[in-house]
């Protein structure tokens, strides 16, 4: 097992190196440079050249890449020029906020989606099924950023139930309760589409299972309907639901970008959009590499866990 983990970790190194090359190349090749972005209308060739020199961008690309990589290996991601603080501090702060938002949405979409799918399948063609199917169709058809804006208009501007934006109140203590108040709308808006997808898949997976002989057997031997559905059928259906949940986790994480923009959530997606617009090279590079490293690590953990659970996967 240990050697398998080691092998996977070693094989991640070329992947990460490839990512550093790609993100560095993209930032080096896109038109517009940080000095122009900083100087705006004052970007004379002379000023741009001086500022590039001050920023250390006058060196050849290969040399800059080597310096950047070497510093990063030592844990120094550099300093963001647009925020004037260490890139790693900023990325860690922002990534934490994104995890809170995306994690909540993921839990929401898993629990609600699976439950809706199960109820829908259990009451096939009943009123509950039709209601849920309609709601699901509506849910997956509404773009999350639009839903978010409508929620702000209704619940923040009209009814004033929830704060319109941000993660923490401007004044007062930071405790779980106020975080939940700020989290409710963005997490719901982000979860809606994923919930719809999960519910649809859970419904068809359940219907598939409910047709099996052993379900008929369970019913025949007198297991109460609730037990049949939740214990026997759902457990079997989860095998095909779980991979979908995995995909939805990625979807929720990337969809967080829009929601972070709409709700001013201080997450990593919004950070990257701002950084790209400002041509904050080190922040973009550091942010992308960090997020990519997390994905790679997450995948390794999942693979290792799966190999532990499923003996068919060779170690």
């Amino acid at each position, binding site marked *: 097992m240990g050697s398998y983990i080691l092998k996977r970790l070693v094989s991640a190194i070329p992947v990460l190196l490839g990512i550093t090359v790609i993100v560095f190349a993209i930032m080096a090749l*896109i*038109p*517009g*440079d940080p*000095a*122009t*972005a*900083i*100087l*705006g*209308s*004052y*970007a*004379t*060739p*002379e*000023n741009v050249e001086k*500022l590039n020199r*001050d*920023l250390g961008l006058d060196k050849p690309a290969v040399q800059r890449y080597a310096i950047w990589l070497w510093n990063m290996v030592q844990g120094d991601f550099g*300093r963001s*020029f*647009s*925020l*004037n*603080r260490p890139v790693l501090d*900023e990325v860690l*702060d*922002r990534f934490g906020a994104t995890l809170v938002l995306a994690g909540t949405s993921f839990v929401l979409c898993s629990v609600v989606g699976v439950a809706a799918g199960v109820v829908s399948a259990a009451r096939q063609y009943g009123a509950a099924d039709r209601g849920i199917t309609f709601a699901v169709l509506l849910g997956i058809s509404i773009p999350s950023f639009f839903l978010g*804006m409508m929620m*702000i*208009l209704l619940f*923040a*501007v009209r009814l*004033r*139930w*929830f*704060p*319109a*934006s*941000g*993660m*923490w*109140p*401007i*004044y*007062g203590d930071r405790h779980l309760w106020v975080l*939940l*108040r700020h989290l409710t709308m963005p997490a719901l808006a982000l979860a809606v589409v994923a919930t719809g997808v999960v519910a649809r898949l859970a419904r068809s997976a359940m219907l598939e299972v409910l047709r099996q002989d052993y379900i008929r057997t369970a019913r025949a031997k007198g297991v109460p309907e*609730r037990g049949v559905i939740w214990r026997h059928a759902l457990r079997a259906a989860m095998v095909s639901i779980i991979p979908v949940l995995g995909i939805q986790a990625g979807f929720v994480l990337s969809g967080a970008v829009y929601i972070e*923009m*709409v*709700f*001013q959530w*201080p997450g990593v997606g*919004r*950070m990257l959009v*701002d950084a790209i*617009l400002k*041509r904050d090279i080190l922040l973009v590079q550091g942010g992308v590499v960090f997020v990519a490293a997390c994905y790679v690590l997450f995948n390794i953990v999942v693979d290792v866990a799966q190999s532990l659970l499923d003996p068919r996967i060779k170690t």
Partner: protein
Amino acid sequence: MGVLTWTRRGVLATGTALALSLGLPAAAQTPPGVLIVGQIAEPKALDPAAVTAVNDFRILMNVYDGLVRYKSGTLEVEPALATSWEISEDGTEYAFALREDVSFHDGSPFDAEAVVFNFERMLNEDHPFHDTGPFPLAFFFSSVASVEAVDELTVKFTLSEPYAPFLSNLAYPTGLIVSPAAVEQYGADFARNPSGTGAFTFAEWRSNEAVVVEANPDYWDGAPALQAVVFRPITDANTRTAEMLAGGIDMMVEVPPVALSEFRGDSFRIFEQAGPHVWFLILNAKEGPFADKKVRQAANYAINKEALVNDVLEGTAEVAAGPTPPAFAWAYNEALEPYPYDPEKAKALLAEAGAEGAELTFFVTEGGSGMLDPIAMGTAIQADLNAVGFDTRIETYEWNTFLGEVNPGLEGKADMAEMAWMTNDPDTLPFLALRSEAWPDKGGFNSGYYSNPEVDELLEKARVATDQDERATLYKQMQEIVQEDAPWVFVANWKQNAVTSDRVEGFELQPSFFLLLDEVTKN
């Protein structure tokens, strides 16, 4: 089945209870005495020498003072940290008498040495704290040859050549004075631990959430009425509008034109103020149809500027008459009338020049500082030009890419390009963008290659004249010639806007576009 029903009801009840308890404590009112300002972005730094964006200036102007400042409601210079100054005959020496008994927020004294430290840090590459930069706008003071402390409260600047905009550059945020002791203490982190002499003292900066400043009770110009100001970055304009409507902020700047109608009513106040901004089209006077002055004038007649400012910009701008915005009241030529919208005259001029059906490549940007609504404006302009017989093709670029295309000059690429400038002195824009010596290959912004020796001479003269009336006469002459030569299509002067809740009193927008809050109160 009964259990299932109970469970379902239980879930419903729990959910409702949760929703109610989360939602019920209605969004708290912002506290009195604390002004919460919706900003358009996270500030880059709170070091005035290091920043370039109006967004950052809005915070900085409340934390720092300069030697001089703009008189409220104008763009004319008045004393601030300097109480008076003397300019030598030849206009190369400026001696400032400094205000007594002023301290920085960190307790260190403000004196001549502090002023010297500030300018040395920015301009002298060998200064021990020059590495706290980069200082992108240091060239505002590139004419400064030396700064010396004559005595404790007198500081003398020697310029390498006479440079009339020097005083108004000192009033610009780049000239704000920072505490040398704080720079020495924090080094590169000074930008997140600022210390000045201004009406508000820096309290905290929570990344991506807020910058908080608190009243400075010892402010030399009278302690502010507010206890504190919170600057919240809300980059999305729709969210900023919603947050204002929801009562989460007390003041927002740069309200999108279409959202202004939301705030017409008793619970809000709308402020508008024309500023030193001009939105124009650079025309390529070197090659193609616009090399002919008649065709350039035809473009000025062809475009319906009234429709642009009223319909596209919803009245958030005024029609521009020439290259100098009216906000520079002392230097603006009141006699100038904008080119009227006259498509027939445009057609006649085109026929005279034999340029009917001329093909134009038009560079349009997607956004950018001061560019207002560039895509919609570009489309309307294209339609107007085509209506009089041009054949206009738009090429759209993202802002940074756009600058990279336009600033090196339009030759071989385009016939016209959108552009907008906000400046602090009537010298800046024409000097950098209309002189023959300012063609891109000479390091200027004259991307359309306009050249008129008369204009060159007027601008050179105005720059070295120290008498304001004399400068005003020269600028007025320049505006007349430039309007007639039409190197640009003069389109609009932006009116900056802001909205406050009815709890905010004593607020005024400044023509400088700075946000000054020391007289504001909030109930």
